[in-house]
């Protein structure tokens, strides 16, 4: 396996300009909505890598090893020696089609030698939980499914995804890895701490939360955010994600992050389901605990590679926009912490997302996560 980092910026365009593209190669690229809009950058990449599958999305910030930036587009070109690839993309008209869309992608990619799937999805017009359920429903729970929902900074207006095409809204694209040579390690952790009383989801519908303990959910958030941060809704709601779990299965706790608010209905739309009757608890983060979470995710991912000494190893870090909103300049604490765990030989790039997809650290079941750092590491045996 070979991997090459690329960067695009206003001044220099893509650097480096030269790249030895292999037969089965894959390019990941991540940038702001504004930078990707129009498709120029995609077409430039396509020109550079005519035979490769090119997969990218808009973000809430790009991760380039330890650095986090908003201006440059980061990309990585990866050439596989013994792994074949298949790309699937689907448009999604409405969040209610999420499951069907996931199933369609699953059918596109499913094969006996399917070893893993990495998916990028529109971050606003999708029910991530349903999408994941749709894919795993077809490919089965044992195939690792990782990825994330595209971001739009703190704007929550439009997210773009492109898979062998110019990035566009309402798009889901996934790449399947085939063969026995590929090794995919994955890890997911939050580092958020629950606080305050446990509340009950007294009214919800799918991923729309209306009431907690009989009180409009938005009232609670606004109270906690204060007048200043309330102006920044829905983005500022990321400061207080909620952890939800079925009261009967406390181990199944997942963190949910806000995608949108409806000030008239006093409701909040989350990136995944918030089932009525479940228990919910607000969460808050501290710089150190979130960085420790990122390190934990990285550790899990590296462990998943079983110590293969591929010097071209490569990781994609998908971290939640909420973490960046909270940590500000200190966000690099988490990329550094992840980097320390993954080791110097591991090329890292990634993005700040509206949702992370990875198997659950405890249950192993693929799920949509929020407010986590998820790390997917790739290596090839025998390369």
């Amino acid at each position, binding site marked *: 396996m070979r991997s090459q980092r690329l960067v695009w910026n206003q001044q220099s365009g893509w650097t480096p300009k030269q790249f030895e593209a292999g037969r089965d190669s894959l390019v990941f690229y991540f940038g702001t909505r504004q930078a990707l809009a129009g498709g120029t950058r995609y077409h430039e990449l396509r020109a550079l890598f005519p035979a490769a599958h090119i997969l990218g999305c808009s973000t809430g910030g790009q991760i380039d090893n330890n650095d986090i930036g908003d201006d440059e587009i980061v990309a990585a070109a990866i050439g596989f020696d013994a792994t074949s690839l298949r790309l699937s993309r689907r448009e999604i008209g409405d969040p209610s089609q999420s499951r069907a869309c996931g199933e369609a992608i699953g059918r596109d990619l499913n094969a006996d030698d399917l070893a893993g799937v990495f998916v990028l999805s529109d971050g606003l017009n999708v029910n991530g939980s349903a999408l994941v359920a749709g894919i795993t429903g077809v490919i089965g729970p044992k195939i690792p499914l990782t990825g994330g929902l595209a971001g739009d900074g703190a704007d929550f207006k439009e997210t773009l995804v492109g898979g062998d095409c110019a990035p566009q809204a309402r798009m889901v694209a996934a790449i399947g890895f085939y063969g026995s040579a590929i090794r995919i390690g994955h890890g997911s952790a939050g580092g958020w701490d629950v*606080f*305050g*009383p446990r509340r009950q989801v007294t009214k919800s519908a799918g991923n729309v939360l209306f009431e907690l303990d009989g009180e409009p959910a938005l009232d609670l958030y606004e*109270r*906690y*955010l*204060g007048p*200043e*941060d309330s102006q920044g809704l829905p983005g500022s709601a990321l*400061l*207080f994600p909620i952890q939800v779990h079925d009261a009967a299965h406390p181990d199944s706790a997942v963190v949910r992050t806000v995608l949108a608010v409806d000030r008239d209905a006093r409701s909040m739309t989350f990136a995944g389901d918030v089932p009525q009757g479940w228990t919910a608890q*607000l969460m*808050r983060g501290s*710089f150190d605990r979130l960085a420790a979470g990122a390190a934990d995710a990285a550790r899990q991912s590296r462990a998943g590679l079983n110590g293969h000494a591929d010097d071209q190893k490569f990781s994609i870090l998908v971290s939640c926009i909420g973490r960046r909103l*909270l*940590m*500000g*300049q*200190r966000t*690099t*604490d988490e990329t*550094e912490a992840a980097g320390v765990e993954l080791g110097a030989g591991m090329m890292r790039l990634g993005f700040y997302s509206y949702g992370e997809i990875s198997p659950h650290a405890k249950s192993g079941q693929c799920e949509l996560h929020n407010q986590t750092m998820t790390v997917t590491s790739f290596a090839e045996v025998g390369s």
Partner: protein
Amino acid sequence: MHRLIAQQIAKATAADGKVDVARLSELVNGAYEDLDRDRRRTDRSMSLMIEEIDAVNRKLERLVEERTRELRAREIDLQAQNVRLDAALSNMSQGLTMFDVEGRLIMCNGRYLEIYRLQPGDIRPGMLLREVVEARIRNQSFSGDPDQFVAEMMAAARDRTPMRQQVELLNGRTLALDVQPMAGGGWVATHEDITERKRAELKIAHMALHDSLTNLPNRVLLNKRLDEALAHVERGQQLAVLCLDLDQFKNVNDTLGHPIGDELLRKVAGRLRNCVRDGDTISRVGGDEFSIIQTDIAGAVDARQLAVRIAEAVSAPYDLHGHAVIINTSIGIALAPADGTDPHELLRNADMALYGAKGDGRGMFRFFEPKMDAQMKARRTLEISLRKALENGEFALCYQPVMNLGKDGMKSCEALLRWHHPERGLVSPLEFIPVAEEIGLIVALGEWVIRQACADAAKWPDNIGVAVNLSPTQLGNANLLPTVLNALATSQLPPDRLELEITEAVLMHNTETNLKALHQLRSLGISISLDDFGTGYSSLSYLRSFPFDRIKIDRCFISGLGSNSESAAIVKAVAGLAESLSMTTTAEGVETQAQLDQVRELGCTDVQGYFYSKPVPVEELTKMFSRSSARKAAVA
């Protein structure tokens, strides 16, 4: 240097190593603002959280207070309920135990200890059933196999099936044990001492089937036994049913009183018991009626022997509280299968045979004969006709003159009842009077006779009286006096022209009442005669007990006058006695001149019989009066 400031410097340093101070201060500023914001957020969220948690705590405290209050109230309720429950348990008439699913005693009440004579220390909660049983074995209040008992109880509890048992204790008492499984395992058992109830039930069951006076089986048990015995008959055996009653038992009750009558029945029952074998059944089916089932007999001869034994045994003298009583029994016998195999048929046939035996004379036994059935039917027909005869006007009176042996000539006429049956013609009084007596028609019939006789006599010459026979039943009837007065008043017949004839039998029953009635009648001026004298007990004490106006000497003495001297002696003695008591005497059944001469010689004052006139219809009698008055007129 802090990692952050190093990063910030790096970011603010251009490629040529020149530090962009404005950029650096912007970054540092931002970092401070980040921190401030984070602190503000943290402070805000912490204080809100504290508020919330405080609110939750207060809510919880209120909840705890509320629940504590509820619990206390419930506790008080429970205590009160416990007190009530305890009172209920202590005062219930049944013993009660409660065991848990493992068979350990949860509680028992005082009555339980009492029933099994346990001391409070003998058993305690937590003990296994087995240990409770052992405690009862020690004080001998347990009988039966302890292992089996424990196994049965545990099985019933395990299967959750209720159990009912009757337990006989060593001290002879009987307990009803009722075991009910409880929800959640275990069981509750009640122990009730049902000794008295059981005794009472047995007694009631016995009473339902036995006669309380003699303790003999009653008719219900008789029928049951007869059913059973007849089942053996179907398999080839023979049996006899004997129906018997005591002759003249009513006399004993009437003369000596019911307590003596009851004592007699008890003694008769005892004697009957001695006459039969163990398998036979003696039943008292009514007043003085008994029925006996003699099972497994070889034939009629066995039944005959039993009848003879019974007749002998019953007729032996009794000493009833100082009263010597002799009584006979009449017995009817029916055999199965010869006379029937249906219980009712057999009893009816034996009854018919008894009726036949009574017809034969008291103290007899008779076997059932098919013709008895016909006789019985004939009697029934007679009964039915008799009941209609009075309203149909089928009765008539004829009269037989009584002649004075002095110079008075015809003195009176005795009224004699005749029944002109529309189909059978003239029916003998000997046939229908006993039936009328039995069916209670005799009173109405007697009243008719009195009224009719008075009405007839009122039309006769003033010197001719009329004599009417009174049956014992009539005399005992409270209506007699009003009837006589009414008849006299209606007919305008002077009382001294009416003579009422009674037999000795009248004086044997209800003597006091009858004598009182006789005195009342006599005080009205009515004459009272003693009829058929010499045929019954002929006790002279009867003559002393009432001042009869006349004694009628029975025809058997008159017909015997020619052939034996005893009759003459008796007639003479009676006539003499009557004369000395100022009574007149009528010789009945005088048929010849010789008899007439003789009775005149022996001292009788009057005669009656065919020599003068047979009984004649009233029309003919009227003609006789006319002739007599013509004759007298001619003489005059």
